[in-house]
């Protein structure tokens, strides 16, 4: 018992110092911190939309359409007299949920494929990577449009469509990262102790190949949010009346010359979110692997 107590702090301290190093490097990067702050705010919006805005985003007020910003409607109302601020806040939840879910799925599948390909190499690598090549040959938006057109538009299909487009990037990044790790001495050592391939991959290879994957998560999130908006813009995204920034843009497109604010607010929301994730991703990359910085 006592022995355990003694050994735990040692490991803890070691992990802590590595984490602290990364954190220190990250905090030094002001733009990345700025990105993180925006993401933090977005997450708050996504978690508590009904506390931060009206609880019902479908309330229409047909007599009060296109009204400008006021005390009652902070960002004005849209073409159906719905409160723009409410819809933007709720839209944040839509975008982040679909973005996170699709990136999680893509990450799980892509990382598995990439690890297998990178670790085993040879024929398996060749076959898996050619499949990934085929996936990469189809533009994400086109892939999304085809899937949604074939399976109908619902949030589940949308998540699947966007995830599929992201798998290729994850497996590529993972594969190249795994290749650099698989021949290191500690992996050799683990193999010499008789550890199985699965254990080696899970315990030794993946944890050390994680940095670029984490960075890929943030950039994929930004890309996915753009993709959701793109699909919604062409009318294949989130079904009405669920608010989504891309469909808000699409609705406002025809009236943008008369009511420019209608297109500005959702536009800014998309831009800010993607910008924040990109800043955060860049900062994270530099913090995780300082060698890459220059």
């Amino acid at each position, binding site marked *: 018992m006592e022995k355990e107590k003694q050994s735990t702090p040692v490991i803890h301290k070691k992990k802590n110092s590595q984490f602290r190093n990364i954190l220190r490097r990250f905090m030094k990067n002001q733009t990345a911190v700025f990105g993180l702050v925006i993401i933090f705010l977005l997450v708050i919006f996504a978690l508590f939309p009904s506390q931060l805005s009206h609880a019902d985003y479908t309330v229409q007020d047909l007599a009060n*359409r296109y009204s400008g910003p006021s005390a009652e409607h902070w960002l004005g109302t849209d073409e159906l007299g719905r409160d723009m601020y409410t819809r933007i806040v709720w839209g944040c939840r839509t975008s982040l949920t679909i973005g996170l879910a699709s990136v999680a799925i893509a990450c799980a599948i892509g990382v598995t494929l990439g690890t297998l390909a990178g670790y085993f190499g040879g024929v398996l690598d060749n076959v898996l990577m050619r499949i990934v090549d085929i996936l990469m040959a189809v533009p994400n938006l086109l892939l999304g449009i085809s899937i949604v057109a074939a399976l109908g538009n619902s949030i589940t299909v949308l998540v699947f469509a966007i995830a599929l487009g992201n798998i290729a990037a994850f497996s590529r990044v993972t594969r190249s990262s795994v290749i650099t790790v698989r021949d290191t001495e500690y992996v050799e050592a683990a193999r010499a102790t008789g550890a199985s391939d699965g254990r080696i991959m899970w315990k030794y290879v993946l944890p050390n190949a994680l940095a670029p994957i984490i960075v890929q998560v943030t950039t994929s999130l930004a890309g996915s949010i753009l993709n959701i908006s793109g699909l919604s813009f062409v009318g294949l995204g989130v079904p009405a009346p669920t608010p989504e920034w891309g469909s808000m843009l699409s609705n406002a497109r025809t009236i943008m010359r008369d009511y420019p604010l209608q297109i500005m607010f959702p536009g800014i929301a998309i831009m800010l979110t993607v910008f924040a994730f990109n800043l955060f991703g860049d900062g994270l990359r530099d913090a995780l692997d300082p060698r890459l910085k220059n």
Partner: protein
Amino acid sequence: MKKQHVVSLFLAGAMVISSLTGCGGGGTSSSQPAGTSAAATQAAGQESKAEETKTAESQAATPAGIKDTLTLAAQSEPDTMDPCRGNGVSNNIIMNQVYDSLVQRNEDGSITPRLATEWEQIDDTHIRFKLREDVVFSNGNPFTADDVLYSLARTKNDSTALSTMSWYDPETSYAEDDYTVVVSMYTPYAPALYVLAGGRTWIGDKETMEEMGEENHARNPVGTGAYVLSEWVSGSSMLLARNDNYWGEPAKTPNIRINFIAEEANRIIALETGEADLAYYIDGADASRIEAIDGYHVERGPSYSYYLICLAMDNEKFADKRVRHALAHAIDFESLTSAAFDGEATTLTGVYPYIAEGFKEEGVWEYNPDKAKALLEEAGATGLSFELHILPGTAYQRMAEIIQGYWAAVGVTVNIEQSALATREAQGPWDASIRVATADEISNILIIYEKTFGSRLAPNDDWLDGKLQELKQLYDTDERAAMLEEIQDYLYDLKYSMPFAETDSVYGVSDALKGFTFQAQYNRANIAEWYIEQ
């Protein structure tokens, strides 16, 4: 390093600009300032050599001072130029220039001669037409009674014209001589002349069609109209050249270019840049924007088009009349119309547009959500949920979201599904939909309720179908009015359809354009009389 930045910035800017102009031009590359023949020649420069000579020839024949090419911005490209396939405004805008019909229907509803000089009703089921003797097709072939019978029989056999041509009997219709045709009907059919004046019965040349084959002819049509189709760039534009063999008053302008620009905003841009002299299908809400363009104005008036909510008649969910009444009571139709069309449409107060024959004022259905809820409960339809299908376009989306909101307020859940008509119909039975319909004369006023028409409402009402057939057999206008009234009352109460908005036809027109007269239907536009003086 800095230099590289400047270059890449410049490149990015150039890309943005080129993509923007790509959107605006709808496929044409030259933005042509109105009224310069130099620009017209430049535009013609893209065409083939043969085209250039043709243009030059027509130009030579033009009285000095008339602009050589008028450019029109239309919404969508015709899918065919086959004379039996005039099913839709976009096809007929062009076909009305390339082909002729036997008779012509005017803005006031009167029927006047076109290829037929006179006609007499022999009995209830036969009409004798005397044809013009001086007509040749654009390739020089003479026009005869044979061409009429051949063309009508082709339309009769076309799958898209089943309901329109149900009355026509090709077996017993015959030619008395080269210039006399007797059109025979299975049963008396009052709107026969309207159908013969409408877009379904263009007359093509039998000899040419048989020689060229139908498919080839559908791309390279030969007609008797004021213009000849001289160039068809798929997805982009059509060029019409004046038909020098035309039997009537020669067209005023030698060439008409029709650019197909799907987005309304881009059609307006085409007017702003001077690229087009006229644009079709302008939203009422954008009229002020056209008026603000220097040198352009708006021509508008009531159309025969109206929007309606359709509940599929063969769908169990709507079988109970109380449910249909409840769905109608849940909607404030006046607010819906005003919000969906930015106050630029009129709320329908009856079953079809008020300018169509025999319209009966029924009033706007009462907006009463409480009554709607009570009715739904009474019918045991609480928690009703169904699909609302709409056609592509942001206008439909807006209508659908408003209706979704109204129905949600009385506890009805609606999933909006947006796709092309053919796509949805191929997927099998549907629930509710928002559609647009045209009702201009007795043959089509209530066609959407006919069983043979299918589509939209999936009609299956025997009584109604019988009445609609009977209606078309009445030559006496008083009898017809009485029956129309009866049918309208029935439909208004039946509530499988909820017509709500009547829209205007709006053209954006160059101030310099002469000879324009407003036509409620875009395809009836008198293009051959249009010209711009220079």
